[in-house]
């Protein structure tokens, strides 16, 4: 198997991460295969990896981040490779998940938080995500999606109305590097960003600095130029230094991890990257 290959084959969830980090307190749905397909089609059943209550990570305040399974990209620095395959997730009904979300309403209220649907790739399960986002909005909860934008076309206008904030990962600034990093094309992400900016959606940009892969001045400059197009909508840019915290997952999965030797970027490089974004008049962290 090669890392660059796209599709739903060959990835198994590592055993030690399926314990504890999973659904805890969300009941797994017991459904037949036919029911499962039907319910996933109509958005009442999702394939969920795990959830977490986090502060100041995936949007403002304390948020319930829901990790869905399945991703069309194969980023070689992915730190959640166990979320790549949709079939590795646990079946969870939208009612069950919304019940859990409802439990944390007071937490979201006190902290100015909300929910963030992440993954995997949230837009691999657009109907399920839409059901959850709509349900959350009906409870008055702030909603965020964390996406690469690659499947932006799967986000309907109705769904977009239920989203308050988009965390948009721009993984590189030219087609060649983007393909090297993710195995896919860059253009869909640009298109999605254009659409969000036109709709006046709030966007936080995320860019991961990987030494030798994404940190070249030109690459960063290209990303910054793309982001600058959406300036009115982008309220912050988060420059994230690459880390090795996902390495054990790759190993447990028995996959070849290409960044085994890669060190986190130096402070100077990270600061240089931030400066490149700042130079475009963006709010950068």
């Amino acid at each position, binding site marked *: 198997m090669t890392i660059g290959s796209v599709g739903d084959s060959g990835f198994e969830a590592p055993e030690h991460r399926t314990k504890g980090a999973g659904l*805890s307190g969300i009941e797994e749905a017991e459904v037949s295969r036919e029911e499962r397909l039907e319910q996933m089609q109509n958005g009442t059943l999702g394939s969920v990896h795990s959830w977490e209550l986090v502060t*100041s990570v995936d949007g403002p305040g304390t948020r319930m981040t829901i990790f869905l399974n399945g991703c069309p990209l194969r980023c070689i620095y992915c730190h959640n490779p166990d979320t790549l395959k949709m079939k590795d997730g646990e079946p969870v009904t939208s009612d069950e998940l919304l019940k859990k979300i409802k*439990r944390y309403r007071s937490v979201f209220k006190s902290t100015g938080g909300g929910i963030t649907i992440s993954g995997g790739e949230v837009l691999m399960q657009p109907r399920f995500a839409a059901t959850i986002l709509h349900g959350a909005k009906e409870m008055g909860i702030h909603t965020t999606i964390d996406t690469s934008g690659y499947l932006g076309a799967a986000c309907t206008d109705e769904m977009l109305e239920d989203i308050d904030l988009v965390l948009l990962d721009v993984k590189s600034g030219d087609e060649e590097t983007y393909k090297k990093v993710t195995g896919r094309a860059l253009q869909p992400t640009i298109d999605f960003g254009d659409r969000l900016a036109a709709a006046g959606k709030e966007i936080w940009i995320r860019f991961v600095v990987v030494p030798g892969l994404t940190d070249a001045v030109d690459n960063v400059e290209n990303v910054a130029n793309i982001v600058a197009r959406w300036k009115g909508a982008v309220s912050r840019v988060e420059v994230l230094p690459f880390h090795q915290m996902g390495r054990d997952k790759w190993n447990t999965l028995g996959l070849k991890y290409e960044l085994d030797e890669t060190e986190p970027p130096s402070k100077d490089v990270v600061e240089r990257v931030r400066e490149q974004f700042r130079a475009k008049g963006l709010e950068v962290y």
Partner: protein
Amino acid sequence: MTTTENDATMTQSSAWRGFEEGPWKDLIDVRDFIQRNYTPYEGDSSFLAGPTEKTLRVWDALEKNYLSVERKQRVFDVDTKTPADIDAFPAGYISEDDDVCVGLQTDVPLKRAMMPNGGWRMVETAIKEAGKEPDADVKKIFTQYRKTHNDAVFDIYTPRIRAARSSHIITGLPDAYGRGRIIGDYRRVALYGLDFLIAEKMKDKDSVADQPFSEHWARFREEHAEQIKALKKLKRLGEFYGFDLSRPASNFKEAVQWTYFGYLASVKSQDGAAMSIGRLSSFFDVYSERDFAEGTLTETEAQEIIDALVIKLRIVRFLRTIDYDQIFSGDPYWATWSDAGIGEDGRTLVTKTSHRLLQTLRNLGPAPEPNITIFWDENLPQGYKDLCAAVSIETSSIQYESDEQIRDHWGDDAAIACCVSPMQVGKQMQFFGARVNAAKSLLYAINGGRDEVTGKQIVTGYEPVQGDEPLDFDDVWEKYELMLDWVVGTYVEALNIIHYAHDKYAYEAVEMALHDPEIVRTMGCGIAGLSIVADSLSAIKYAKVTPIRDETGLIVDYKTEGDFPLYGNDDDRADEIAATVVHTVMEKIKAIKMYRDAVPTQSVLTITSNVVYGKATGAFPCGHEAGQPFAPGANPENGRDTHGMVASMLSVAKLPYDSALDGISLTNTITPSGMGRTKEEQVANLVGVLDSGFGFRG
């Protein structure tokens, strides 16, 4: 006599000038005084002042001449000739600048004193470990002529207690060191002056004089006599430093100084495991506001006085053994200062002095003592909440408690003794009970009372788990309940003995002199290893746990297959097991008669003995390995709370507070950068997390 009484009335009326009158004038009632006179502060912290030159000079001198030396050699110095007492040492100072709030435990900063009433062996060991030799005469007194608390305890201990102690299922008991967990109402010294307090104690003592003899009656009179003697010594202590404590304090500076002398007397005469100072800010603030109104105090001076007090609270030292330091992970004395909260009438108890206390962490830098403990409520003033969060982020030196839970059970003038135990100041004390190893008890249940580490049969008459089949939850739970009867019974028996002996041989006279004549006593029982029990029972219930035996048939390990819910992830399946364990232990404690009619309570608390408890304990079905440290207090097992800090807070919040009135603790380490990108964001997020953790209504 008439003249003295007139004088007393005169000094009172001048010291109490401008205060609103009330029942507090005739009866000792500090809470009533505070409620009628304090000024809640709703504003922000922009009024605060930095450290004065003098504060910095004293702090530097302390660091240069004493603290830096102590860090190198563990103990700065020990006095081996003078058994400690309130008036045993002459006045001492940090430096010539040390004149804002004065008083040291001995004549030299950080020099430790012997307190042999608790037990001679500990004192001798500690002296030797500090590189000195005990004085032969003092040793003779405390080994030949004067019986100690420790001697008495071991005269009374039963065989089952000795067995449980030696196998470490019950460990860390206060049978050879001071129990602590008593907060004198040190504010009384300032508000009333010692002449009034002594006169009241004499009245109390004789109020029962015409009743017939009973042991209770005799003890009441004897203890009051001890209290009166202690207050007279406290008066002498004031004189050493040039103060007349017989009269009430007449301004802010005196109020702080008088109160500190009360506390100083207690740490000069007792080396309790926790020597907390109470709830002082709103009390002090009455005086500072009056001084401001009279034009006799500036903000800079007020801050300098609080800084000076806090410096003193940072250099309390007791003579401890290295073993003791290991149980408590260092050398803590828990000078806990409780602050904030909401009063019963709905006004916040936050005052400007509450802000000043937090400011000391900026002016002097972070420190673990005094252990500043904020009674948190989402309705605290925003300016104060923001300051708490900001100072927490800067210094990691603040602890938080749910104000609502404490207020509902203990009223709005309660304070924390040690780290979580609430009590009404001056009206209540605790018999400190350390902790029983609830996790090891589970292994005893499975092995029918054989110790899983040594293989010795510690408890007899209990059926072990039979066969090599996977463990059955109902079977294990039934055995656990039965074993808990034995463990809890043995544990409470030990506590009853300890506190009987402590009252008799190491009585806290000055602390109790600053209490009402009749008080509430609680028996503060505690458990260790809750998360291990919860996860292990969850594993037995939801996964497949097969016991592994050694050649003697002793179950020493487990093979656990499959997933199971883990405590600390806001998952009811595991959290309810934890709650049931807490409730079950409490019911068993309640069924036992307590010494001095103490009210039994329970804590699931953070102290620090996790390493010691873990060392003496075997492997568990949840995968916790033999000898590994326990998670502190009610914390989830290390690394097993995988759904974020707020989720673990909500799990802990499910533990029944009614079964754990002595407190539940959750220790979290938060890195500032983990709370937000900017300082403002970090402050807002921490305030939000605290609000949601303490105010959760699911």
